Each structure stands twice: as C-alpha cells, then as structure tokens.
C-alpha cells in the first residue's frame, strides 16, 4: 500500500517537473516597441538606474519630479541600484520577464546580451547618427552601443580610468610624476619614505584588479589579438603580452601597495578613502570618482592630478589607448510605453540636465556634446574627458567585454595573483580553460 503511494507521488513529481520545464519560454511575445510613435503622456514609466546612494541618487529623483510636473499624467517609478547590486537586479528582472521600460547597461558583452536576446529596442530611427537627437551625442559614445549597424543605447556619461595622484605628496617626496611603468615602480620607495602609501588599492570585490589588468593588456597585447581573445570561439590567449602584463601587475601590487598580498581584504571604498584623506599618494580611479575623492577629505581639487596608468617602455600593444567606456540606458523592446520612454530620455539628456550631471556633486561627464566644460565640471573631470576624447581608442572593462565564465576566471585569477596563490602562468591557464568551456 505504502509502496504504491510512493510510486504514485514519484510519478506525480516527475510529471510536474516535465510540465514545469516547459513553462519558461523566454520573453513574452508582446508587440515590438514603437519608439518613433507620438508619446502618450499617461501611466507609469519604470526606470532602473545605477545611481543609488550618495551623492548620485538625487539626480534621477529630481529629473523624475520635474518630468512629472511637465506631464501630470505620467508617474516615473525609479528603481535605484548600486554599481554592484544592479548586476543581480538586472539579471533577476530579465529572467522573470519583468524588465522596466528603461534600464541601465554597460557596453560590450553586457549590452550585447540584451540586444541579442531581443530585450533592447532598436533606437536607430530616433538616436542614429543622422537624427536630431543623435547629433547631440559624441559619435564614439553612440557607436559604443551599436550592434550590426543598429543603435540600441542612450549613452548618458563617459568614463575612463586614470591614476589619480596627490600633487602635494609627490612634492613632499621630491618625486617626478612617472611617465613610464618602470618610473612608477621606482617612485614607490621614495613616496613610502615620505610617509605615504604609494598606491592605495582595495580588491575585495575582484573587479578593481581587472581594471589594472585590462589597461596593462592593452599596453602589452596588440588590439587585434585582444579582440579575438575576447570571444571564446576565436580565443587562444597565446600572446606573451598577457604574461608580461600579469607580472607587471604583481610587481605593482608587491612594490607599491602597503597591503601587498592582503589587498584582497581591502574594500575599494577604503582605498578611495585613504587617498581622499591624503594618506596615499596615488589611487587608480574612474573619472566618475574624481569629485568624490576631492569632496570633504583633506585632498583638495587643486591637489588632484591625473595621468593614464604609465605604459611600459617598448610594449607591444598600444601605449595611447585608455581603459574606459560610456555607460547608458536602453529601452525595453517589449515596453508598451517605448515612445514615452524615449521622450523621458530626451529630457534626461537635454543640455541643461546634461550640464547638471557633469557638475559637482555628480561629476558624471555627460556624453552630450558641449556639456562638459571648464565652467560646468571640475578641473579633473574636464581634463579626464579631454584625455578620453583625445585617445586613439578606448578599451572596455575586462569583465564586460568577454564571456561571463571567462570574466569570472579573470576575477579569481586576479585575486590569486595578488595573494600569491597562483603564478601568472597558472592564471592564464585557468582563463584558457574557462574560455574553452565557454565555446
């Protein structure tokens, strides 16, 4: 009797499994968004931003309130997340087919996933290079969200990674600002002697190490090789420049940070804090951080200098390329309010709001042409954007340009390299394996 009941329950369980595995068949086939239609100013518009927390959260809150005042029938519902939490949020909403009307995206593999999966609306007719709206953006920022000749993204701000240095610290130590990677390493003992941590660095989250690595890869590995290695189908990771870059990174960590092998135990924000308090001479940071590091700490804006991470002499890659990428927003391809979403984003990227975004306390250099000027932005942000715009090319974030399994191998490898748990050769081997399994 009991055995029969067990069989019955097992059969029921098995049938449920088989039935349920067929229940999740991707995005619902709603009508494709008509982005060029006349917007209907009513209903709730949902927006997933990456601006949670101070000082950024008021930016979208103020814009939403202003837009609602202009269009009383519209309610803007903001879902504000941090740089870290938005990764989970976006994937959860994607998996449950609950993406909002407008949502944040990075460039590279991250954006392409949404585009290939039919989750991002084709905005070519409203934001393409020849359109009125498209002409307001810098060409490079627009093309960063292009895929197979179509334009999917609304670039909001540009970003690049620079070695920020404390001018007073260099002056105290009597050290020249380094022009090459060797000079950077050589400057560290003198800076330490003068009472500063030469380079403050926190790698608890893993990705800060990838920022160093990607810039060093760009210096040491030819662009065409790197591009091929970003895609598991064509990747080999055979170029000797990778090992050179990994060794250079290890040298930098061991010679120039006070935490050396323990750097994985330090938060990125703790490192930022150490630089802002004038305890450290250098800190590798994004343009988006310039205004944070000079607000409220002992480091004054006039004391902040920026240089690209110094390139090694005679490196085989491109010594002029800068790591960075614009970040922006896409419109949900299945949104019934796509035209309203486009209108809202036109409002967000209008000249006045673009200038506000580029100014302190936000300090996010807008991609709108003319928004970043010496009058609207801090000196460092303006200088950083000028360098980014003047660079012959940008290299995207390592964990965004490649397949997720490969990015994860780089994350673990970077941590292991810092702690001494893996040699550069072993790190590269683990990345090769991950790339092969991602084919």
């Amino acid at each position: 009797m009991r055995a029969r009941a067990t069989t019955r329950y097992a059969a029921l369980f098995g049938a449920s499994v088989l039935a349920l595995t067929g229940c999740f068949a991707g995005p619902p086939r709603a009508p494709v968004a008509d982005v060029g239609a006349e917007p209907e100013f009513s209903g709730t518009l949902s927006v997933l931003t990456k601006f949670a927390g101070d000082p950024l959260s008021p930016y979208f809150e103020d814009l939403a309130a202003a837009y609602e005042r202009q269009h009383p029938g519209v309610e803007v519902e903001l879902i504000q997340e941090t740089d870290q939490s938005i990764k989970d949020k976006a994937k959860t909403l994607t998996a449950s087919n609950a993406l909002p009307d407008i949502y944040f995206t990075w460039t590279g593999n991250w954006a392409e996933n949404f585009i290939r999966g039919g989750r991002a609306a084709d905005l070519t007719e409203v934001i393409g290079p020849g359109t009125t709206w498209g002409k307001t953006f810098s060409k490079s920022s627009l093309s960063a969200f292009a895929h197979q000749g179509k334009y999917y993204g609304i670039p909001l701000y540009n970003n690049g990674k620079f070695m920020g240095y404390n001018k007073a610290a260099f002056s105290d130590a009597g050290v020249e600002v380094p022009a090459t990677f060797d000079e950077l390493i050589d400057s560290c003992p003198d800076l330490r002697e003068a009472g500063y941590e030469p380079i403050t660095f926190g790698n608890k989250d893993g990705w800060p190490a990838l920022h160093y690595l990607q810039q060093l890869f760009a210096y040491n590995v030819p662009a065409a090789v790197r591009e091929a290695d970003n895609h598991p189908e064509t990747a080999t990771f055979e170029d000797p420049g990778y090992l050179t870059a990994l060794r250079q990174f290890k040298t930098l960590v061991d010679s120039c940070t006070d935490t050396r092998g323990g750097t994985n135990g330090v938060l990125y924000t703790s490192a930022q804090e150490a630089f802002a308090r004038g305890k450290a001479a250098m800190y590798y940071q994004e343009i988006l951080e310039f205004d944070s590091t000079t607000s409220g700490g002992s480091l004054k804006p006039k004391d902040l200098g920026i240089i690209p991470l110094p390139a090694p002499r005679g490196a085989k890659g491109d010594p002029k390329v800068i790591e960075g990428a614009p970040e922006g927003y896409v419109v949900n391809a299945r949104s019934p309010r796509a035209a309203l979403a486009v209108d809202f984003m036109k409002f967000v990227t209008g000249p006045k709001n673009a200038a506000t975004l580029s100014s302190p306390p936000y300090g996010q250099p807008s991609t709108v042409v003319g928004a970043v000027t010496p009058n609207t932005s801090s000196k460092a942000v303006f200088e950083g954007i000028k360098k980014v715009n003047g660079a012959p090319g940008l290299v995207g974030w390592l964990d965004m340009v490649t397949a997720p399994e490969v990015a994860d191998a780089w994350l673990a490898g970077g941590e292991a390299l810092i702690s001494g748990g893996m040699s550069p050769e072993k790190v590269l081997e683990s990345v090769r394996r991950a790339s092969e399994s991602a084919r």
Partner: protein
Amino acid sequence: MLVRTMCRRALGLAWVIPALVMLAVFVYLPLVQNFGFSTLTWDIYSGDQEYVGLENYRRLFDDPVFWSSFANNLWYAVLSIVFQVFGALLLAALVESVRRERWQRALRAVYFIPAAISLTVAGLLFYFVYEPNIGLLNHVLDAIGLREFAQPWLGQESTAMFAVIAMSQWQGFGYCTLLFAVAIQRIPAELYEAAALDGVGPVRRFFQVTLPLVREMTGLMVMVTVSGAFQVFNEVMVMTSGGPNNSTQVLGTWLYRNGFVRNDFGSAAAIGTVLFVITLTIAMAQLWITRRKRVEW
C-alpha cells in the same frame, strides 16, 4: 453518525486548505521548478532553453570549486559542532553553576547579545575587525607585542575561510548557550544535591548528571547547527563574496555565483538541488532523533 464524522472531517480539511495551498505554491512548487531548471541550459536573455538531462550535475561533480565549496561547508559544520554545541554546553554549565541569580542573568545577557545582531551587520563589523590597514585585530596583536602574527585575514586563501567561520561562531555561540542553559535549568536540583552528598565533584557532576540529561537538546543542536552550516550565505557574501580565488565559496555562494555572475542558471539550480538533498537528509535525521524515546526523570 457517519455523515456527521464526514462533515467534521470536511470542515477540518477546509480549515487547512489555505495553508496547504500556500505551502504548495511557495515551497513545493519552487522545489519542483528548481529541479526542472537543473535539467536545462537556459539563456535568460533570449529565453532559449535546451533540455540536457543530468549534464549540469555531471559538470558540477567535475568542478573543483564545487568540491572545495562542499569542503568549506563541512569545515563550517565541524567547527560549529565544536564551538556552538560543545563549547556552548560547557559555558552554559559554567553559567548555571554561578550561585547568584543576578550574575547568571547578566552573563546570559552578555552571551546572547551577538545573537541579536543580524548576520549582515555582524559580517560588516568583522570585516572591519579583520581589515589589514585599520582592523582592530591586527592593532591588538601589535599592541600586545605579537605583530608577527598580524595577517590580511580575509585577503589570503589560507586564513579567509577560518576568519569567516570564527565570526559565525561568535555570532551563534550565545544563542546556543542560552538554549543549553534552559535545558540545564530543567534538570531537577535533587539530582545535583544527591550527587553532592555522594561527594561527586563538579567535573564528574557535569559528565554524569548534566551531559546525559541534556542529550536530547545536544542532538537537536547538532542537527540544527549542521543544517545551518550547509545553508551559510550572508556572512560569506558580506565578508569575502567567496574570494579570494574562490577559497571561501560555500555551496550557497557558489550557487549564486553560477547564476548571477556566470549566467549559468542550470548549474545554479543543480547546486540548489544538491543543497536541498543534503538539508533534507539532515532534517530527516533530526526528526528521527527527536522521535526517539525521551530521557525520563
């Protein structure tokens, strides 16, 4: 008579149906769904799914990080039994042997305070205790002349997992102590008095009176602790996110990383199923132990 009985049963059933529906929808259906997902490769962006049978499980069992995560859960379980069960039992016996009730109450409160702190807050707190630059632990070691023992506790593979486990023990220790204290209070005082009259010392009293009479609670605590050790997630996420180099991954965080970092939701679901089987086995064992004959006095 029969009709009345049937009506009464039907009425009883009507009362429990809402709870059964809630259970089915929110507990059992997701379990079945999760097993379904574990047999698929699933692109969350396009929604494309492919049935791969048990391939995700095969890949999982070939994955060295899965096994190191499992080993970390085992370390958690073993060390939790040592500290949170046997350590807490010893401490509870000591606290209960204090004669003044006011002191007893004060001590219980002191030991229980960490349990009142959320795991996330405790994790953040200990992150700053372990921080290599400004951390309290290294400063204390420095102050007492043990500078050579200062470490980047969470920053290196050799110490990170144990640093996280130590925080968990600190957080859970007081709660277990309190439960044991309650169990010890239920032991009739006459037994201790009789033992004292027979000239039995405190150590023998502990082994011959206390230990046998809190056996039931000890069994329960072992099960709860082991089960909890396999469900660890928060403290690892807050303190190390599974790093450095995956050295502090446990099954819960490895599940998360497979799903949300590597976009491999099939493997994540497979880990979920393995976790379910482990915790279900522990729960069954717990049920079996608690159904055994109680100690009577």
